[in-house]
């Protein structure tokens, strides 16, 4: 079955909006439950991790590009915490290894 990109975008927008607006309008409370709070704390880190690996390995036909980019960006992020710099290092790594 083929799906409409516009409908995808609308579903994404609706879910994003509800997550943000419900606590400001209907709920208006702090989350007290420790498990829920902890889960929400870890969710973004785990989501970003599982979205990065293994997808980064298939950036180019040569998986070494992705592996090297992951390591290089990881080192730069550890040292500098700089988003832009890590991104540049990842791109340059893929570009250089891609030339061989």
């Amino acid at each position, binding site marked *: 079955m083929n799906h409409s990109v516009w409908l995808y975008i609308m579903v994404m927008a609706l879910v994003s909006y509800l997550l943000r607006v419900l606590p400001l*309008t209907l709920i208006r409370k702090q989350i007290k439950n420790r498990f829920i709070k902890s889960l929400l704390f870890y969710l973004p880190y785990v989501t970003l991790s599982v979205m990065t690996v293994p997808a980064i390995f298939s950036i180019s036909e040569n998986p070494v590009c992705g592996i090297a980019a992951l390591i290089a960006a990881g080192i730069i992020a550890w040292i500098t915490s700089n988003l832009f710099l890590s991104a540049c290092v990842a791109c340059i790594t893929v570009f250089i290894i891609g030339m061989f």
Partner: protein
Amino acid sequence: MSTHKNLKYNFLHGMKDGVPIGLGYFAVSFSLGIAAQSAGITPFQGLIMSMLNNASAGEYAGIAAIKANASYIEIALLILIANARYLLMSCSLSQKLSPDLPLIHRMLIGFNVTDEIFGIGIAHSYPLPPSYMYGASAVSIPSWALGTMFGIIAGNMLPVNIVTALSAAIFGMFIAIIIPPCRENHFMLGVILVSFLISSLFAIIPGIASLSESVRIIILTLLIAGAAAIIRPVSDEAESEVTSQKEQEA
């Protein structure tokens, strides 16, 4: 100072604080645009997608799902997981708003609760004026949306080897979000390495590997984050935030 002057002051103050955020957003959403281009999303669709979503991880997850021709339920669940943290942020932010702030303002502020806009909102003194948030959003939303659009256009025009290299940018940024907290929180480093490992295994183990990308992300995120929350629950930071806010009021 009259209310009108206050309104203008707060809006301009928000715009000023929104400029560095907007500049950073442009770079992130440009890389997001490169990813969107590979999923066949047009520049105009990308512009609208970013204008309505304002979320890097959420949009990237959405793009991956669109690329894989996922079902609408799948993409809804995926966005729910990828953006779940905004629920927590909005809960905190609601404590920062005046209790008698009209519904329409709450609905408008809710539109653009992002990590960075939440950050400056929480840093603002109580009660948080909506015009401050609108000022910041007036800078950050266009820059986020235009960045995505230009990323898609660039992806369409640049040579393949450059686009391949640029497609690593979004991952470099994700890495720069997940790695720095690991310096102080070694448990987090473990969580991330386990996520990398299990996620890679899920992509090769026969049977499980046939799961779609979005289902894989949903299952893994809930499993690993759930296990982490049980093994190492977080301390009550949000509680102390409210306490310090009440102290300010007193």
